[in-house]
């Protein structure tokens, strides 16, 4: 897609968005139309590594709790043979409106499958412009820093992930980082609306505008413009390298953070490490029409696949976020509380957070807690 075409596309979308006042935060989106007979259909992309086994646990918990959600499974992983499969996944998500997604490994066969590129295609095709991660300290998990509660909003469709590179001279590669006014305003608006909705007091923009004066400078300027419309929320900015240093020394100072794509990747992973690791934190990708839920740090967990030691927390919490999005709040709360009780009170932990429990033991414990709440459940 040429650069000009891309900018035209974004302009049109922003004008349409602006006219309809469609710049909405997460739970103001209407539930998708894939609902029949009181049951929702959700696209499930298991991926590779620990994805398939953990999603089978998610489905088990859903079935046990009688959650009115059916899954349409679409494979997008290293067994791909053609490009059609990623297009099938996109079509399925358009059809259902919501997806749960695992990560894929890269396998280079005669058809080169690059999961990072396919992720970019997924997010840009569906215009899932906001990646949201809520990073909270869990009382039951031992970490160096406590009382962390940070929301990270990452621009998900442009920046350093625009996939625009060329080698004009052999051995010299130029990569284009794209920052557009429309997308920067859009993500800043999303961040401030979410902050207001959640009762947050402060939004910090993370940037490197001292070096990338035009690119990150534009992003920062857009954030400032949006901030002026939210006088009840404090706005400040911080350079990305200082941000990572502050995060590892005093993470409690941060509230809501908004940033372009690459810095979002870095900051999300730092925060995931601070609260206990990639097995604990769910992530969500929101657009105007669609939403895709996954783990925050997007790891395949290849080395621990099929050993019954992976931590199901992140994907279970992601599926609860999905249930909230579908307005199935009671089921979301039920499962989320069971997961957090297992983590914090029962203290049944998997190996990644220093425990001895297996994945199935943790899931069984969660289902027992759900059963004890007196809700209608299926057979265990």
């Amino acid at each position, binding site marked *: 897609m040429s650069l000009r075409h891309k900018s035209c596309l974004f302009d049109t979308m922003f004008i349409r968005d602006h006219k309809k006042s469609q710049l909405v935060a997460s739970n103001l989106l209407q539930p998708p139309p894939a609902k029949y007979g009181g049951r929702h259909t959700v696209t499930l992309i298991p991926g590779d590594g620990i994805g398939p086994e953990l999603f089978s646990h998610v489905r088990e918990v859903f079935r046990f709790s009688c959650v009115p959600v059916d899954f349409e499974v679409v494979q997008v992983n290293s067994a791909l043979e053609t490009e059609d499969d990623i297009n099938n996944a996109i079509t399925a998500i358009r059809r259902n409106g919501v997806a749960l997604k695992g990560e894929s490994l890269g396998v280079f066969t005669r058809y080169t499958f690059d999961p990072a590129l396919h992720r970019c295609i997924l997010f840009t095709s569906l215009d899932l412009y906001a990646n949201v991660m809520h990073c909270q300290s869990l009382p039951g998990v031992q970490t160096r820093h406590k009382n962390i509660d940070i929301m990270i909003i990452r621009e998900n469709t442009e920046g350093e992930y625009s996939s625009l590179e060329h080698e004009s001279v052999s051995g010299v590669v130029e990569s284009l980082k794209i920052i557009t006014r429309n997308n920067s305003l859009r993500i800043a608006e999303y961040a401030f609306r979410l902050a207001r909705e959640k009762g947050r007091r402060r939004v910090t923009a993370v940037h*490197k505008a001292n070096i990338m004066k035009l690119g990150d400078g534009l992003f920062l300027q857009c954030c400032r413009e949006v901030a002026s419309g939210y006088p009840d929320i404090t706005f400040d900015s911080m350079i*990305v*390298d*200082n941000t*990572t*240093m*502050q*995060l*590892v*020394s005093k993470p409690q100072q941060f509230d809501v953070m908004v940033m372009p794509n*690459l810095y979002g*990747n*870095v900051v999300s*992973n*730092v925060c*995931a*490490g*601070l609260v206990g*690791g*990639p097995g604990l934190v769910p992530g969500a990708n929101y657009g105007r029409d669609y939403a895709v839920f996954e783990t925050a*740090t*997007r*790891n395949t967990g290849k080395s621990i696949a099929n050993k019954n030691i992976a931590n199901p927390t992140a994907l279970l919490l992601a599926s609860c976020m999905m249930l909230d999005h579908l307005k199935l709040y009671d089921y979301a709360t039920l499962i989320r509380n069971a997961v957090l009780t297992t983590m914090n009170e029962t203290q049944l932990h998997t190996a990644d957070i220093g425990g001895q429990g297996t994945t199935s033991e943790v899931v069984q414990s969660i289902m027992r807690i759900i059963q004890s709440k007196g809700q209608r459940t299926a057979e265990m």
Partner: protein
Amino acid sequence: MASNAWRSAVSTRNPQLFHNCFITCMVQDPTQFDILVMPNLYGDILSDLCAGLIGGLGVTPSGNIGTNGVAIFESVHGTAPDIAGKDMANPTALLLSAVMMLRHMGLHDHAKRIETACFDTIRDKKVLTGDLGGKSKCSEFTEAICQRVRDL
């Protein structure tokens, strides 16, 4: 030398360390890493991240090495105008950068003595500047290091 060390560090411990996993691993257990090599932007971000992990910019040395051995060694903290001229600053970062410079010049014995004296003074915790939780002045901290160098 660095490239061979990198190959052995990366290949024996983590043959394929994707960006995502690496940063989370670094935050959770930085001791598993030895030498890291990376392009400019990631280096900028990660050097500050690692400085935060070891105690901040006040104790982090650095060097910029060019071809033909031309090099500039510097601390990576800022000018700190709020404490300038007040005998409050922590000289560790600049001192350890000077130690790197001595090593670069081949003066390993001098480098070792000063570095040992500096680490021992910090480990001792009797004379520390404000950023490390102490109440001593910059000159007192420096004098303590000099004393240890004399004794070594």
